[in-house]
């Protein structure tokens, strides 16, 4: 126990925070990548790449930390999730490889065809990565069939259910909006004007996708809102989420992209919190037999390890926060191309 919560719950919170951090940070990189082909001019594309250039790699590390946090704290869940989603995970990882490689390689040759090829690879990789992330999140929220050994016992095709596909599309829309807002914040002149238009359009895309997914959930998967319905104090989370979403177009209209970025970050975090509230204490719900479900307690490492992990997190978090802030501060302001740029 620590501050009234047991270690397993603490680690669930830490894991959730890391996932949210990843979604907020790499979310704008992936979103910027997914909309890359909407930018037509060579210089615009270079500026967009250099807007994420110094930070995307650090942002991706949050995924590595999330993977390590799940492996260390809840090894049973780590084993079950990644072996169950075998092929989607492979597609996701290979997508991440191509994203990284496209960013690195694009600028290394001046040829038009070379650059166009990498632009297409880059956009396609970001779309695939984002969609598969949403697809897996949707399936985790729904639950998947698990046998008594807590390993997946269903068919891969079942991952492509309507709900999970909707979550995938919503994630894509959310990241594209988030990425467009980030790029608008980092650019000026005509590219800025273009991005303000894109940001508005993706916001509409997101609001529609979000509304459809929410409607579908309330109508067909009512148990995914049970917890909030029966605990009025949790109602605060959807309220924050709706207020944050509503504030985005308002800030876009006022041209305040920093605030818009803040609100789209809050939107991402509050969406994940809403999912976390509903699934807790399950990490992976067994849709065939609830008794086989993986919970924070039956998946957790020993109390000693959980304590060690919390100490590691307490030492590490301020360090990571400090140098992340330092890097973002160093590269603050509008993007300027120089001889070291992509």
């Amino acid at each position, binding site marked *: 126990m620590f501050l009234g919560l047991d270690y397993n719950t603490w680690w669930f919170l830490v894991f959730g925070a890391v996932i949210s951090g990843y979604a907020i940070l790499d979310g704008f990189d992936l979103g910027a990548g997914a909309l890359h082909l909407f930018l037509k001019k060579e210089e615009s594309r270079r500026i967009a790449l250099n807007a994420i250039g*110094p930070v995307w790699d650090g942002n991706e590390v949050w995924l590595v930390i999330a993977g390590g946090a799940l492996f260390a704290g809840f090894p049973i869940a780590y084993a079950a999730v990644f072996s169950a989603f*075998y092929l989607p*995970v492979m597609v996701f990882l290979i997508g991440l490889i191509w994203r990284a*490689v496209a960013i690195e390689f694009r600028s290394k040759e001046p040829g038009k065809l070379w650059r166009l090829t990498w632009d297409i690879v880059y956009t396609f990789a970001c779309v695939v990565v984002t969609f598969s992330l949403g697809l897996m999140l949707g399936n985790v929220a729904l639950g998947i069939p698990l046998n008594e050994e807590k390993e997946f016992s269903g068919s891969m095709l079942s991952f492509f259910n309507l709900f999970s596909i909707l979550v995938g599309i919503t994630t894509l829309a959310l990241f594209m909006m988030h990425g467009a807002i980030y790029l608008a914040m980092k650019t000026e002149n005509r590219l800025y004007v273009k991005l303000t238009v894109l940001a508005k359009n993706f916001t509409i895309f997101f609001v529609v996708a979000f509304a459809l997914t929410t409607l579908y959930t309330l109508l067909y998967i009512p148990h995914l809102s049970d917890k909030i319905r029966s605990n009025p104090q949790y109602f605060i989370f959807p309220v924050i989420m709706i207020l944050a979403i509503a504030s985005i177009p308002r800030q876009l209209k006022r041209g305040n992209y920093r605030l818009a970025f803040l609100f789209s970050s809050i939107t991402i975090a509050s969406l994940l919190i809403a999912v976390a509230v509903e699934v807790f204490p399950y990490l992976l719900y067994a849709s065939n037999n609830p008794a086989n479900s993986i919970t924070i307690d039956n998946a957790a490492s020993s109390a000693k390890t959980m304590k060690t992990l919390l100490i590691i997190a307490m030492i590490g978090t301020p360090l990571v926060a400090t140098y992340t802030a330092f*890097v973002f501060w160093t*590269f603050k302001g509008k993007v300027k191309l120089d*001889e070291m740029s992509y």
Partner: protein
Amino acid sequence: MDVEILSRIQFAFTIAFHYIYPPLSIGLGLILVIMEGLYLKTGLKIYEDMTRFWIRIFALTFGLGVATGIIMEFEFGTNWATYSKYVGDIFGSALAAEGIFAFALESGFLGILLFGWNRVSSKVHFFSTIMVFLGSMFSAVWIVVANSWQQTPAGYHIVGEGLQARAEITDFWEMVFNPSSMERLSHVWIGAFLAGAFLVLSVHAYYIRKGKHLAIAKPGFKIALAVATIFSLAQLFTGHKSADGVAKNQPAKLAALEGHYDSSTVADMYLLGWVNNKTQTTTGIKIPGGLSFLLHQDFKTPVTGLNAFRPEDRPIQVNAVFQFYHIMVAIGMLLIALTLYSSWLWWRGKLFENKWLMGVFVWAVLLPQIANQAGWFAAEMGRQPWVVYNLLRTSDALSKAVKAEQVLVSLILFTLVYTILLVLFLYLLNKKIKHGPELTAPDEEKEIEAKSIRENPIMN
């Protein structure tokens, strides 16, 4: 083919491909710290040009290291679910520490290293270079600790029975400082320094042969040669310590390394040879009793052989383990000879007179790479049939939910993707090398050398 062999091939393939890049990043990190440090100390433009040139190559190796490394973290869960459950309590904490202490540090400061030259002061930039280097060193710490725990488990107890059994930490620091972790870590670090130093030597030797960029090529070559000489020699000691540790902690692996079967006899040391696991004989050029002497300082003391272990508890591919190990050792010796000879020429002031020597260095870049790969193959194949030594068998460690067809699909995907990546990497590396450094310093070598000899001993 079944799931086990496919999963093993996939893991070996993805990790071996990944391991081309991190040692280069660690080694180049060290060289960058030295070059940029010399720039700050002397203010000479050539060091700035050198640093900026190598930063560009560093960016390429680092990028591929990250891209291929992220696969590794998830492959434990995708293909080795039972293993993940078994070791999660232990391995997971090392992996989490790696992410938060090492990767976050290096990736954070990497942005400044690559893009910050005009944004921050030269001191802050140098600080970032050091942080990236330290981050890459730390990342080696945690992954080697985790791997070493698999070789020599310590600080744990087993909870549960049969397939539900798992290892739990009883003492975190005992786990970290398990019997093999420190000697293997130093061996891995030095292997990485050599990989980086020899890449620098290769590129600079190429320029010297072509008579290009000499103002940078020659002093840069000397920096890398100093690093390569020191660490080639140091590797002999860490290698010997590692072998001692294997003898003590993993006798079956040691026996496989030298193809030694009969426990009642003295053990020979082979320079090269061939192991026939069916007839249990090893033939080749050997120092009789050499292994006995190395371990016990006595040519007559018997050493535990493979026959002391039940057939199901010892490696089957003995000849492969033997060959990988001997390739590594032979390359290690070759590197010592090459660097010592070159350093002697340097001392005599004749280093750059031999064109053929520069030619050797152009291709010598492959040697530490091959040695690093061979060393890991010997270490990991020699550990078989165990994934966690004497605790968990590789065949029991798989994901039960994953079918052979799925692994085959992902293996084909990885093969395709990685082949394209390797071709692109070599193409771009070659291009960057051909393009060469951007010279802001005057390209009049003599003037520089005259000035440098006065001010800086490393240029002599």
